[in-house]
């Protein structure tokens, strides 16, 4: 927008910047040469250090999620209805009576109160993970909008093990975020919501989710053969949790 303020500010700044543009300084990609097992191990260690919960799962992940949520006392789960993940969930959900499945398929205006006051848990997918910091990369979409990962007290995420990269820098450059364009609200999430504002003592579950449950699935098109055999991923990766 053109305004007198804009012109005045730019004019003053121009006086301080004679000459041509300064080129971007060298910025080699900060990354680590870790094996897939090492990436997984570090991801889990970093995420559990900030109180994220990790479960290693196979294709029976809905049942694993179900039993975890039941143990936490959840009575319903909100999921993205029109996604592949949502379809898998519905197909293999053990008991809709015990934990109801709520499809999230309406604009927020139509379900605001329900989302804020009557949803115990939500499930989303993610774009991948970052081993160095135990971080999930979320790429909200029309089907899987951003408030799903924020409002319910428990947020569950399915992460494909072969989508874990060493650093944020590597992730962003290798997958060409600048070129492909960002969604309205890309997110990095590392653990449940927390605060250290009182006496620098950590308290969890301030405004966002109180619990973050990450289901790492290792069977899926794992391009890397030594990551694990597709049949029994949990056993192969159990060492990572120890």
């Amino acid at each position, binding site marked *: 927008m053109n305004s007198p303020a804009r012109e005045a500010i730019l004019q003053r700044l121009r006086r301080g910047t004679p000459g041509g543009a300064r080129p*971007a300084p060298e910025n080699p990609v900060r990354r680590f040469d870790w094996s897939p097992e090492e990436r997984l191990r570090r991801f889990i260690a970093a995420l559990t250090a900030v109180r994220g919960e990790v479960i290693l799962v196979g294709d029976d992940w809905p049942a694993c999620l179900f039993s975890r949520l039941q143990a936490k006392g959840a009575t319903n789960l909100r999921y993205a209805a029109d996604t592949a993940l949502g379809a898998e969930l519905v197909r293999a959900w053990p008991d809709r009576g015990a934990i109801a499945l709520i499809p999230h398929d309406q604009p927020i205006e139509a379900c605001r109160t329900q989302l804020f006051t009557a949803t115990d848990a939500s499930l989303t997918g993610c774009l991948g993970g970052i081993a160095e910091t135990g971080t999930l990369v979320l790429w909200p979409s029309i089907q899987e909008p951003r408030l799903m990962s924020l409002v319910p007290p428990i947020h569950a995420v399915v992460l494909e093990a072969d989508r874990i990269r060493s650093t944020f820098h590597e992730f962003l450059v290798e997958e060409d975020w600048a070129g492909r364009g960002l969604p309205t609200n890309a997110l990095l999430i590392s653990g449940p919501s927390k605060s250290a504002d009182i006496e620098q003592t950590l308290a969890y579950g301030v405004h966002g989710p109180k619990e973050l449950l990450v289901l790492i699935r290792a069977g899926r098109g794992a391009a890397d053969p030594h990551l694990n055999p597709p049949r029994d991923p949990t056993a192969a990766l159990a060492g990572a949790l120890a």
Partner: protein
Amino acid sequence: MPPEFSVRVGQALDNERLRRNIRRTMDGLVAKRRQAFPDTHELTVLRRRGKLIRGQALANLPDLLLELEANCERNGIQVHWAETAAEGNALVLDLLRRQGARRVIKGKSMVSEEMGLNHYLEAQGIQAVETDLGEFILQLAGERPSHIIAPAIHKDRGEIAALFAAHFPEYPHTEDIEGLTAIARRIMREHFGQAVAGLSGVNFAIAESGTLCLVENEGNGRLCTTAPDIHIAVCGIEKVIARLDQLPPLLTLLTRSATGQPITTYVNLISGPRREGERDGPREVHLVLLDNGRSRIHRDQQLRATLRCIRCGACMNHCPVYSRLGGHAYGTVYPGPIGSVLEPQLQGLDRQGELAEASSLCGACGEVCPVRIPLPGLLRRLRAEGVGDGPDAGVPGQGSRRKVLHRLIWSLWRQAHAHPPLYWLMTRLATRLRRLLPIGLGPWARTRTPPVIAPRSLHELARAEGFAHE
């Protein structure tokens, strides 16, 4: 009129509870930062990179701001420019009025503190609700942040419990930190569910993609920027960086320097309002770019380094002055070393020039700064500007700290050293009449033994020992 700086310093030093609270936090943050950078080589490399990235952004600032504006607008973010805090406030008010908002929920933003936004909005009948836990506590107490990262560290749990009990008698009294946090969560949830308007700051604005990056741990920042119909981001014009791939090194420097965290719980990358077909997110996103003196700082090549700051707070955590006083004694929005450098430039040396003197120049701030701002050098430059000895950079209040007596002493000093007979006379008088001299060293001598002038000058002693004039 608030009390003088020296009075506030005295009050802070006498407040044992305050000093204990500040000290505990500062020691904790210093230790956490140290653990977060175990590899000093990596730290050196990162700091250098951080400095260069921020330096490049400032060197190309006008072009980058235009690029940011163009890309934001392509993304649907509306960009506004404000020369002063008053203009910024008026812009925000106008946006809120158009939305019919009577209340705005706020994520933590130091720029909004700088604008005095809450106060301004209240006067116009719009309630500003702070949602960050620390800021929420301060709003209850009617206080200002005492630290840019951990705003309420000057309070301990006992004080916070008492505040909660006074404001929310319906909740049971607790001094338990988890319990206090849970109360805040419940109170805030209602606001988040209903709010029409949200306001936040910006940590980095990325020009090439038109993206606003916000970091936080609590999730309140995400709620303020996602749940309401309109999101207004206020941002200093210096916060822009050129490219998306420059974000990761700055991000890791910021969080590790600030709290020792490898990363914050949330890194929120906002590239536009709700798009066609999307089911949530604000319908409008506005970016208010605030100058408020920054373009003037930008003009001076040396002082420009001030604008590299990424507001991590490490300089205050490591400052021997800040860690004894806390932030309130400074009486400014930005305390600590960066405050002592920034505030005199924003508000004028006549009003805040004293802050540049509140430093022992130990150099710790410059050593830890993740973007290598030479803070001690800038403090010395501002001291020189204050007494009118600097190059003319248009720092407001330049020369205002010059004192006639000081001038007189220094000009005598210069004369004496330029004219040997005068020098001789002066040392003669000083040594012979030393008992008659009124040596008032003021507060300096209160805890120190004042020096005593020797009966004979070094020259005389040397000559007596037989040294020839060389």
